[in-house]
C-alpha cells in the first residue's frame, strides 16, 4: 500500500507575504522630490567690467528682514508681484519705464555667437518675428529674510514667466507650455523659452537687517 504524505497547509504563506509587503510599503519612501530649479551665477570676476544695463530693463525686487517687499522702489505685496512682473516682461503698451525689447530678426543680425544665432533662427521659424525682452529681474534679499518668503517670491516670479510662456504657447500651438514639455516637443518648447527667457539675477548678498 502506498503511504500517503500529508499535504502541507500553504494557506498561511499569503499572510506571510502580506506582512512582508506591508513592511516594505511602510519603510519605503515613495516621496518624489520636487522644487524650484535655479542656476547660480559663477563667482564674480573682479577684473570683469560691470555689464551696462539700462535702468528700465531691471526689475528690482527687494525683500527685507521683516519679509516686506520693495518692488521697483515702491512697497509691494506678494499678491500683486506676479502681475507686475508679467507687465514688466511683456510691456504690452511700450511703456518707456518698463522693459525694452528687440525683435527676433534684429537679434539675429546682432549676434555673432553661432549657437545663439541658431536658437533665434529656430524660434523665428516656429513663432514668427516676436519681441524678445531685454528685461532682467533682480532679486535681493536680506540675511534676516525668512526662507518661506524667499521661496514665495521665487515662486511668483516663476509663475509670471510660466504664465507668459503659456499664453504664447496657447496662441500659437493651441496647447499649454507644460503640455509641450510633456509631449516632448522640445523644439517648440525651446523656441518659446528663447522668446520668453527666465532671467532672475540674484545680487551679491548684503546684510542690512543686522540679524544673522
Amino acid at each position, binding site marked *: 500500500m502506498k503511504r500517503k504524505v500529508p499535504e502541507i497547509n500553504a494557506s498561511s504563506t*499569503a499572510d506571510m507575504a502580506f506582512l512582508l*509587503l506591508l513592511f516594505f510599503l511602510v519603510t519605503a519612501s515613495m516621496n518624489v522630490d520636487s*522644487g524650484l530649479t535655479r542656476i*547660480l551665477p559663477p563667482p564674480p570676476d573682479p577684473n570683469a567690467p560691470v555689464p551696462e544695463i539700462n535702468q528700465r530693463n531691471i526689475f528690482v525686487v527687494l525683500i527685507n528682514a521683516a519679509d516686506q517687499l520693495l518692488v521697483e522702489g515702491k512697497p509691494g505685496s506678494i499678491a500683486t508681484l506676479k502681475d507686475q512682473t508679467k507687465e514688466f516682461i511683456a510691456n504690452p503698451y511700450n511703456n518707456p519705464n518698463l522693459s525694452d525689447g528687440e525683435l527676433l530678426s534684429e537679434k539675429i543680425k546682432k549676434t555673432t555667437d553661432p549657437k545663439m544665432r541658431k536658437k533665434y533662427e529656430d524660434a523665428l521659424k516656429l513663432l514668427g518675428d516676436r519681441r524678445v525682452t531685454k528685461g532682467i529681474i533682480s532679486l535681493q534679499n536680506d540675511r*534676516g529674510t*525668512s526662507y518661506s518668503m524667499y521661496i514665495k517670491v521665487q*515662486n511668483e516670479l516663476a509663475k509670471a514667466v510660466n504664465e507668459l510662456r503659456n499664453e504664447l504657447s496657447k496662441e500659437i500651438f493651441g496647447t499649454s507650455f507644460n503640455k509641450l514639455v510633456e509631449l516632448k516637443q522640445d523644439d517648440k518648447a525651446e523656441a518659446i523659452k528663447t522668446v520668453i527667457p527666465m532671467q532672475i539675477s540674484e545680487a551679491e548678498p548684503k546684510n542690512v537687517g543686522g540679524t544673522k
Partner: protein
Amino acid sequence: MGRFKKDDKHTAPAISTASLPDIIFMLLFFFMVTTTMRQSSIYVKIVPPEASQSQKLEKKSLISYIYIGPPINPQVFGNEPRIQLNDTYSDVKDIAEFITKERENIKEEDRQKMTTSLKVDQDVKMGIVTDVKQELRKAGAFKINYAARRVND
C-alpha cells in the same frame, strides 16, 4: 458523538487559493524593486515651503542633498539651524569638500548635470542659505534646486 452529514453534492467547490501567495509575492517584488530606501537619516527638522511652480526632479543619482534646519533634539544641539551633509552636522566650509566628493561619484559625462538640492526648513533665515549658496558658487555647483512641496492654486 454526532456525525456530520455529507452533502457535498449541493455545494460549489471551494476556490483554490493556492495562487494567492504568488500574486502577493509579485506585488511584494514590485514594491521592493521600485522603492528606494532612504540612504541617510536626517538629523534636522525640515518642513519644506510650498510652491505652486515646483517641478519634479528627475535622475536621483545626479542629485546631492544639503539639509538645513533646526536640530531634531534641541536639548543637545540647541535651536540654531544647522547644515547637514551626508550623516553629520557640518559647517559651511565643509561644503566644498562635500561637493568634490559627490562630483567624483558621478560619471564624467553627467557631471555637468549634477544638481544640488537644498532641503531647507521654511522658518530658517536666508543668512545661512546665502552662505551655502556662496559656497556652492565657489565650488562650481551652479545648478541648485530649492526643495518645495507642490501645491495647486
